[in-house]
């Protein structure tokens, strides 16, 4: 990526991390990836009453090359999945993905031949937002949580350390199908 990735870990890197995190989260530009009903709520979130412009996000970039954030809003069909992946690949790093709505998070109510059961089969997702469709306020809450994540994101050698730790924790964690007693 940029020069900030090449800094050695230490006081200078931490300060740059804070600055870079602050800058990145405050002008996150979404790519238009509205597919179905959730897209309408996303447009409503960008419109007058639930204003996304106060977070610097009212410019929905049409070109993925200029966007940081892909909000997958709506059901992804099998025909659309390669297009989704291509748009994601065309975005430049750093990039984040919000799976908006039940259909993007897990296939939603459409458990059938035509819909990809969760957009994380195709792209890596940072925030899953449930709802059918989620209210604009819920979308803004998801975006703010993403902002918090971006603010504390580490760079360079610190980031490699974080990735190693997260992977080790995930490998050692109890898988969901072994968790018992949760339905009670």
């Amino acid at each position, binding site marked *: 990526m940029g020069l900030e990735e090449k800094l050695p870990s230490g006081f200078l890197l931490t300060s740059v991390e804070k600055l870079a995190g602050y800058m990145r989260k405050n002008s996150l530009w979404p790519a*238009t*990836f*509205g*597919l*179905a*009903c959730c*897209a*309408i*709520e996303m*447009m*409503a979130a960008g*419109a*007058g*009453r639930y204003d996304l412009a106060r977070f610097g996000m009212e410019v*929905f970039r*049409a070109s*993925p090359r200029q966007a940081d954030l892909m909000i997958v809003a*709506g*059901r992804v*069909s099998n*025909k*659309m999945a390669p*297009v989704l992946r291509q*748009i994601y690949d065309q975005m430049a790093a750093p990039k984040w993905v919000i799976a908006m709505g039940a259909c993007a998070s897990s296939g939603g*109510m*459409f458990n*059938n*031949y*035509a*819909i990809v059961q969760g957009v994380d089969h195709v792209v890596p997702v940072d925030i899953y937002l449930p709802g*059918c*469709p989620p*209210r604009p306020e819920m979308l803004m809450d998801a975006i703010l949580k993403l902002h918090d994540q971006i603010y504390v994101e580490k760079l360079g050698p610190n980031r490699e350390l974080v990735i190693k730790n997260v992977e080790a924790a995930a490998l050692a964690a109890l898988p969901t199908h072994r968790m018992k007693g949760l339905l009670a």
Partner: protein
Amino acid sequence: MSTYVDPYASSRETTEGTVFAVTGGDWDSLVTEIGQAKEERVVVNMGPQHPSTHGVLRLVLELEGETVTEVRCGIGYLHTGIEKNTEYRSWTQGVTFVTRMDYLSPIFNETAYCLGVEKLLGIEAPERANQIRVMMMEFNRISSHMVALGTGALELGALSPMIFCFRERERVLDIFELVSGLRMNMAYVRPGGVAQDLPKGATAKIRETVAELRKNFKDNEKLLVGNSIWMKRTEGIGYLDLAGATTLGITGPVLRSTGLPWDLRKMAPYCGYEQYDFDVVTADTCDVYGRFLIRIAELEQSLRIIEQACDKLEKSEGQPVMVADKKIAWPSQLAVGNDGMGNSLDHIREIMGESMEALIHHFKLVTEGFQVPAGQVYVAIESPRGELGVHLVSDGGTRPYRVHFREPSFNNLQATSAMCEGSMVADIIGAVASIDPVMGGVDR
């Protein structure tokens, strides 16, 4: 033809001439080869992800310069298999699937489906339910036209109408939330009536909203109607006359822009529409500007119908909103308790303590659903985009055998080629925006 073979820019001969596959990084060889070709026909893909194509619509254009010689639509990027899904659910659960087809007009989808089920059952929804349905449908027409006008204007470059339209749409969504609990995809209209009655004070709030809407619709009109830039972008564009529209089976504002006053609310009234006083709006210019004016005028007609529906609702206060037959009527009454929304305590007391039959009905209707006698039926209503028809086939069981929706957007989109070939690229956007396709309805 040069003999240099570039591994990144292959070309091959076809019956249409030489076809070049461009992958990037090979511009110099490409330019030399094209310079030697006779014609310049470019095939451009306005892909499924595009800000101006109204959803996941893929347009494959063949261009000569700025003029479009061929337009082909690629659809199916939002195919959800909803029609097959309904075959695995009961008749009432079908409403929740069907409401997500044309996601800008969920009440219309639900009402068409429920009218079909009621026709198969041979029952009539009570009068108050029909009045509520009419009111919700007209509010849905307003909210759908707001999105159509707003996004259409946005695609053509006018940014303020988008904000105005969504501001008014929020007022309508407030009414939906007041009456049904949800802003979109409400699953409010059920076979036999509606899910629950209006809350107290709803008609007062509705009248207040109607007054505000009437005042604020003028913002859009003052901005766009008669605006010379807007008229230059929309007059004479997307021309489709009556012969073309009838051949292609077009209905809705596109058909009414040719001058034919065909509106199912007048021609084949349903849900009591014959009792309401409103006009069918037509234009005779057959172009995008005419359809734009029709949609603006239909907003005012919808407000008139809502006011009349409010008068009727105030008079029919206290009447049932669900059919009286206990073997069909959706049993529960919802209320908000201290652990969220669920069955009201009165209903629970009745089924657990007082009436065994009520318990049995509740159990059987919620788990199994009611049975619909065998046969097939076709019901059509007037949605904001045209004739929304539903073809239902029942085999006598508790699940639909076949549900097929005749979506207006699906048939209307076939007119894109007729409207756009021969015009310029920028006019395609206007023409598609005036057809107002909703890809959820097109692909289902």
